[in-house]
């Protein structure tokens, strides 16, 4: 008599054989057990070697808190205000300096040239400049000299007596002598 497993149709397939290998082999269960045990050991090791805070921990925390909330220490806002105050004072100083110097320059430039005296000199030491017009006389020495035609003819330009070395620039065809 055949048992159900003797029947070929009842035999496990290859796929099942593979799956069974992964599900039920001692290797798989062993790895899980080992990992579990090691996890337990790790937890024991970690918790058994815990460190603790030192005795002065609480005092130190309270000291830090007191230092941060101490009213004697200027707060950030106060620091900002004082910084702004000092900066504002500096800006006002610079503006005053610039304005003052601008006013003095403007005042000096508005003074007339005749009454202007150099600021370095005292008024009594200042030398007033004579700005009255100077009379210039015409030179009449050569007014009666007349040029004769011969004198005009003998007058030659310097370029004839002292020619410039090299060839003269050729005239372009388009250049035409101007007809006066």
């Amino acid at each position, binding site marked *: 008599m055949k048992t159900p497993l003797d029947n070929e149709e009842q035999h496990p397939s290859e796929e099942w054989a593979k799956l069974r290998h992964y599900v039920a082999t001692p*290797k798989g269960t*062993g*790895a899980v057990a*080992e*990992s579990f*045990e*090691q*996890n337990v*050991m*790790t*937890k024991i*090791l*970690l*918790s*058994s*070697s*815990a*460190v*603790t*805070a*030192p005795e002065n*921990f*609480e005092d*130190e*925390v309270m000291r*830090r*808190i007191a230092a*941060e909330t101490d009213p004697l220490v200027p707060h950030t806002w106060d620091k900002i205000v004082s910084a702004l105050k000092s900066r504002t004072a500096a800006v006002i100083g610079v503006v005053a300096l610039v304005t003052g110097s601008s006013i003095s320059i403007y005042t000096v430039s508005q003074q007339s040239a005749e009454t202007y005296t150099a600021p370095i000199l005292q008024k009594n030491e200042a030398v007033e400049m004579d700005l009255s017009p100077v009379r210039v006389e015409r030179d009449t020495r050569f007014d009666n000299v007349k040029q004769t035609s011969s004198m005009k003819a003998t007058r030659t330009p310097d370029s004839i007596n002292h020619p410039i070395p090299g060839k003269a620039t050729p005239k372009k065809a388009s250049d035409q002598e101007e007809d006066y």
Partner: protein
Amino acid sequence: MSQSQTDSKAEQKRLNPLTDEELMLEFQNGSTGAFTLLMRRYKDQVVNYAFRFLGNYDDAIDVGQEVFVRVYKYKNNFGHTIKFTTWLYTITANLSKTELKRYWRRNSVSLEQSGNPDSDDHAWDIPDNDYLPDERADQSEIAKRVQIALMKVSPTNRELIVLRDLQDCSYEQIAEITSLELGTVKSRINRGRKQLQEHLRDIYNDYFQIVTKQDNES
């Protein structure tokens, strides 16, 4: 016994049975005793978290103190919509990360290696291999070895492992603290544990006689 001492004891007796959230409410209403009590309840956990994450005891103390100063200063920011511990560990985690970044900058770790320092995904993947345990933490030999192994885990995963396995935070709470998806939290914790187990293998073998399959094969 003076009158103020009696008042203070009575106040403490009244506050002791209150929950963390109720204490925060008292603190927001002006009770400094409630703040002191909260600090007493959580100072060790906060310092321990910072130490596990940073690996330096002095820095951990400094971060721990700063955490409680922030709690004091920003008490009104606590909105009672989350657990007090979630809020507290969020502050602690943020300050610890900031401190770690400062430590990296001090020690001239190339930021090019870690990508953008403000990006959570890349900046935290450098394990602190150069870490040496602080002698002032008064730890046993095995505790030092555990801490060294922990510092070899990338900071992203280390933060989550410490919150889960040391501070006993729930996955949901960790997701809130770190602003990560729940699935990401779980996978990172799993990854971190594997990294840690890898570094703790010597300890398992030495102290607990766990012989792994790989050791058997070798």
